[in-house]
């Protein structure tokens, strides 16, 4: 009997280890929660949350093309030539513009080369809320990657909306491989 319990415990431990590895392995490379320090201490919470600025004021390309884009430095100074001009962080912007050296932000969200994603398709055509993929940006002091951004995540959203299999093929064009991979 003891042996049986021992064997059972060993099996359970083995299974748990396996499950842990699988769970870990499934998150490899997806960087969920990635929140790198940025060269300018920009707060989305302040701008998008407290000040209720529209996302597309800065990320103005989001409904036009593939990339939402990071706002050009000049755009920041639309306001910050008047507002908080003494802040050391704001000064970095003016310095960049004066010196001609671009600010090198650390990129947070990332798709691999072989996955094509188009913001306009989602923001403009599908009229999705930015938060659906980017999370509660208005609460993020430091911006972080909210979702896994893996293929399963894309697919599941499409399935929820009925544009990917197992829907009938006539409707499920959103599940075609070459929607994203070409």
């Amino acid at each position, binding site marked *: 009997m003891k042996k049986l319990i021992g064997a059972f415990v060993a099996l359970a431990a083995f299974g748990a280890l396996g499950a842990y590895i699988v769970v870990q392995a*499934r998150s490899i490379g997806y960087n969920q929660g990635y929140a790198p320090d940025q060269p300018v201490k920009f707060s989305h919470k302040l701008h998008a949350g407290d000040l209720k600025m529209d996302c597309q004021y800065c990320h103005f390309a989001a409904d036009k093309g593939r990339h939402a884009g990071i706002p050009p430095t000049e755009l920041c100074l639309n306001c910050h030539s008047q507002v908080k001009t003494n802040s050391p962080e704001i000064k970095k912007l003016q310095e960049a513009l004066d010196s001609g050296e671009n600010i090198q932000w650390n990129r947070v969200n990332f798709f691999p080369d072989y996955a094509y994603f188009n913001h306009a398709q989602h923001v403009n055509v599908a009229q999705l809320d930015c938060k659906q993929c980017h999370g509660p940006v208005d609460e993020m002091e430091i911006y972080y990657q909210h979702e896994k951004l*893996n*293929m*399963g*995540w894309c*697919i*599941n959203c499409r399935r929820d909306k009925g544009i990917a*299999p197992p829907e009938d093929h006539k409707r499920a064009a959103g599940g075609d491989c070459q929607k994203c991979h070409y």
Partner: protein
Amino acid sequence: MAEHVSKLRQPLVPEDRTYKQMSEDVLDTLERKPTKAWLAGFSISVLFLTIGLIVIGYQIATGIGVWGLNKTIGWSWDITNFVFCVGIGHAGTLISAILLIFRQRWRTAINRAAEAMTIFAVACAGLFPLIHMGRPWLAYFVFPYPNTLGPLWVNFKSPLLWDVFAISTYLTVSLVFWYMGLLPDLATVRDRTKSKFRKAIYGALSFGWNGSTRTWHHFEVLSLILAGLATPLVLSVHTIVSFDFATSVIPGWHTTIFPPYFVAGAIFSGFGMVLTLLIITRKVMNWENYITVGHVEAMCKVIILTGTMVGLAYGTEFFIAWYSGNPYERYAFVNRAFGPYWWAYWTMISCNVISPQFFWFKKLRRNMTFVFIITIFVNIGMWFERFVIITTSLHRDFLPSSWAMYSPTWVEIWTFIGTFGLFFTLFFLFIRLLPGIAVAEVKSVKRYGQKGDKPVNVIA
């Protein structure tokens, strides 16, 4: 008591060998230092294997482009070798499974080596689908696992996926079949050896076998079940391999005759290879008492049969290509025989169809040197059969604009030689380290065809 001795039944083992001597004959080699011949053979095999591995490493690091393939001919030596190796991997299971079911007792002396050869050949075969991939490090994509990337599965309609299942099933089933058969002999080694080291190793390997009749009872049932499963399995494997070609659209591949044709060819080439190996082994290991001329002769008969079947298949293919009236089919076959690769076709015909016909003569069947030479021809011929099917069908298919020629590079040639290195390395290790003849089974047929081939109830 007057004992009946059948004239038809030739004894499988010389009458004077006792059970003890039989164990000694087979198992003492494991206790002795290796012979010079073995050492030489083993070293050459390891050398070839090493070169093969280096070449494969180079190929994987650089790209499939180091092979001679092109946009028209996507498979050639790689898949030729694959099918060839799978083919020769058929004899072992066939001998142990089908002959077991048919109660062919002569199989007992050769089934162990033949099965080992099967496993090694299938291992070699398995190498090629792996390394022929453009990105072998992603080979795990072929397994149907719940994918982290989303609901991405595999294509169960692809014959290549069938291959994955067939080859892995065949390899693992053959392996356990072989290993279960090894258990009693491993136990014998364990109990005979004086060396503590060997006792520990063989003790662990023999799973605690003690020769209990209860175990033997289950063992015999197990053997029958595995034989029963392996028989359709062995036929299915080459059938599925033939589906790689038969389900395609390429003229010369798209042929319904392929499953039986491939299976016959596999048995043919498998017996050829088993004979090649056994003729060497019986000589080198002094096992003439166990692997007798009778054994060789019986196998020669199988070779005539299957060789003729293969010949029939060649003829049928040609006939059907003509009879179908399909110009692409017709061209494909005319091109095989008279196109740029005519030499490969006629090598195949002479080796596979003509050379086995010599075995109609008993004298030739019993001449070991002659049999050996013919089996080499059979091996060559069967390799060319696959080359002919794969390469000459691909190189000129539907649109003449993409017709091309193929020639192997040194990388492919050395990979092929390396495969032989792997095969013989494993085989040499096997005959050194494991009982090369199923001793327990041979003991059980000792009295076959001998006096006293009947249980005695009372001691006289």
